[in-house]
C-alpha cells in the first residue's frame, strides 16, 4: 500500500514529523508522524497505552515534545501551552476533560474567554454577562441532547460522568475554528448522547473544520472517519481509508495481528 499516496494531493493543515515524548523510562511517542488534511475527519485508533493521548497532547500544546516538529498550515508551530494552540484555533477535549469541578457548567464552558456585559458595566467594571453565557451554554447542551441537566449553574462535580463529557465536547465544538481534537469523546456517553456527538462531529466538518477523533468504538470510527491513523507502540503504523479496509483489518493492524502491506513491524 502506498501510504504517501493517501490524501497527499493537498497540503496537510496540521502536520507533525518525528515527535518524541518520554516519561521517565517510558517512551510514549517514538518518532511519530502525523498529518491532518483540511476539512477531513481523521480517526486515530490504537491499543490502550499506544500513545494516542500523548500525540494529541503534543499537538495541542499540553505537553512539549522532546523532539520533532509541528507545522500548522505550513508554518512551523511551537505551542508553549494549550492557550497558544487555542489562540491559533485548535480546540481540544482531553481524556481527563479539563474541567474545574467546583465551578458551574457555564463558567467551565467559557473558561478563558468569558463574555463581558456590554456598556460601562462590562468595559469599566468588567462584569461578566452571565445571562448571555448561560443562554449560550444551554443552547449548546440542548444541541447535544443533554437536557437532563437541570440547572446550568450546577457545579460540574455534581454531574454524572457522561454529562461532564457532554459539556466538554460542547465546549470544543462551539469554539474550535481551525482544528477540533476529541480524545475519546463518547467513552462515557449513552447511546443517545453518543449519536448526538457523532452528528455534531459531522456538523463541525460541514462547517469546513477538520477533526481529529480518538476512539475505541470501531463502528463509530468507520461511520464518520475520512481517514484512519493507526497508532501502534508510540508511532504511526499506517493510515487507511475506511472504504478500502474492513473493521477487522483495522483491528488486526492496530493490535499487531496483521501487518499492513508495505510496512514492517518497527519495534
Amino acid at each position, binding site marked *: 500500500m502506498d501510504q504517501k499516496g493517501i490524501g497527499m494531493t493537498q497540503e496537510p493543515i496540521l502536520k507533525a514529523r518525528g515527535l518524541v515524548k518520554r516519561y521517565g523510562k517510558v517512551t510514549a511517542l517514538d518518532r511519530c508522524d502525523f498529518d491532518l488534511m483540511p476539512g477531513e475527519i481523521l480517526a486515530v485508533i490504537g491499543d490502550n497505552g499506544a500513545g494516542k493521548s500523548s500525540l494529541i497532547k503534543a499537538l495541542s500544546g499540553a505537553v512539549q515534545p522532546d523532539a520533532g516538529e509541528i507545522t500548522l498550515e505550513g508554518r512551523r508551530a511551537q505551542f508553549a*501551552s494549550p492557550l497558544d494552540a487555542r489562540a491559533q484555533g485548535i480546540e481540544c477535549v482531553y481524556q*481527563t476533560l*479539563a*474541567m474545574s469541578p467546583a465551578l458551574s457548567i457555564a463558567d*467551565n464552558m467559557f*473558561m478563558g474567554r468569558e463574555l463581558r456585559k456590554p456598556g460601562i458595566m462590562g468595559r469599566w*467594571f468588567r462584569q461578566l454577562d*452571565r445571562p448571555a453565557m448561560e443562554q449560550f451554554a444551554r443552547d449548546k447542551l440542548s444541541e447535544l441532547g443533554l437536557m437532563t441537566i437541570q440547572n446550568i449553574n450546577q457545579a460540574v462535580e455534581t454531574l454524572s460522568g457522561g454529562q461532564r463529557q457532554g459539556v466538554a465536547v460542547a465546549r470544543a465544538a462551539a469554539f474550535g475554528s481551525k482544528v477540533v481534537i476529541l480524545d475519546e469523546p463518547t467513552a462515557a456517553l449513552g447511546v*443517545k448522547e453518543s449519536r448526538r456527538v457523532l452528528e455534531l462531529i459531522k456538523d463541525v466538518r460541514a462547517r469546513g473544520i477538520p477533526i481529529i477523533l480518538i476512539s475505541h468504538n470501531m463502528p463509530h470510527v468507520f461511520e464518520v472517519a475520512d481517514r484512519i491513523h493507526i497508532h501502534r507502540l508510540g508511532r504511526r503504523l499506517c493510515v487507511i481509508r475506511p472504504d478500502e479496509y474492513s473493521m477487522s483489518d483495522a483491528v488486526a493492524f492496530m493490535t499487531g495481528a496483521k501487518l499492513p502491506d508495505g510496512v514492517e513491524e518497527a519495534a
Partner: protein
Amino acid sequence: MSSETRTDGNFEAGLSGASQKVAVFEERKGGLKRLQEWLHMTPSAVPMIVLLVAVAVFGLLSPNFFKAITISTILQQIAIVGILGCAQSLVILTAGIDLSVGAIAVFSSVLMGQITFRYGVPAPASILLGLGLGTLMGAANGWLVARVKLPPFIVTLGTWQIILAANYIFSANETIRSSAIAENAPALQFWGNSIEPGGVKVLYAVFLLIALVAILAYVLRHTAWGRHVYAVGDDPDAAELAGVRTGRVLIQVYALAGLFCAVAGWVMIGRFGSVSPSASTGQMGNIQAITAVVIGGISLFGGRGSIVGMFFGAMIVGVFEMGLKMVGTDPQWTFFLIGLLIILAVAVDQWIRKASA
C-alpha cells in the same frame, strides 16, 4: 462470538422519537428544609449564624458587652486582621497559603515611616512607595510559586523570615513615635481617624475593610479574573488545559495580596499611632488571618468559599476574644478558651453544612 444472532447492526434505530423531557422531581417542602437548602446555597451564612450566637451568648454573660464602646472596639480590632484576611483569602482560594502577610504588613509600615522620616520624602509619596514595595514582595512570592513552581507554604515560610529580618535590619529597631507622626506626617495616620454616629466611634479603617470585602466579593463573583482564581485553586492542571494562564493569575494573586498587606501596614500606623518594627502582627498576623479565613469557611484546598465568609470569620474571632476578656477570665484561660471556640465554631459550621446536604 456467541451473540451474533442477537446483534442487530442498527440498534440506534430505537432512538427515533426518544424523549427530550427533563427529569422533574417533586420539590421537598417545609420551612426547616428550606432553611437548610438556603444555608447550603449561601455558605457565608453559616459563619454569620455562629457569629450571632456568639454575640448573643456574650451579651447574656457580660452586661457591658452590648455597649457602644465594645462594639466599636471589636470592629477596630479586626480591621487589620480583616484586611490581611482579604489577602490571605485570595491566596488560599488558589490552594496556596501566605505565611508572610503579617511580615509584609509590618515591613511596609516601617518602610512608609522610615522613608518619610529618615529620607524626608513627603508622606503621600512614601505611602505610595510603601504600597508599591509591598506589592513587589507579594509578587516575588507569586513568582516563586508560579514560575519556579515551589510550594506556597515553603516559599512564604522563607519570605516570612526574610522580610521580617529585613524589617529589623532596615529599621535598626527604631520606633517612630506617635507624636512625631501626628506633627509631621498626618497622612500616615489617615485610617486612624473616625466618625461617631450616635456615639459609636467607627474608624475609617473599618470602612476601608468593608469596602475591600465588597469589592473583592464583586471581583471574585462577577469578573472573569475572579472565576480564574477559583479555577486555578480548584484544579490547576484542568484550568491550564482549559486556557487559563495559571502562572499569571498566581502572580497577580500574590502581588495583590502583597498590596493588601501594605494597605494593612498603612492602617496599622493609623491605628497604633506609632511605627514599630516589632509589632506582633509580623509574627502572629499570618496565623490570625488564616484563622479568620478558615473559620469563614474557605477551604484550605482551594477553589471553595467566599470572602464574605472570611469577614464573618474575623468577626467571630474578634467577638470571642473581646467577650472572653469581658467575662473576665485570665489571659491563659482566654487563650485556652479561644482554642476551644475555634474548634467549636468550625464544628458547628461543619454540622450545619452536613445537615443541609
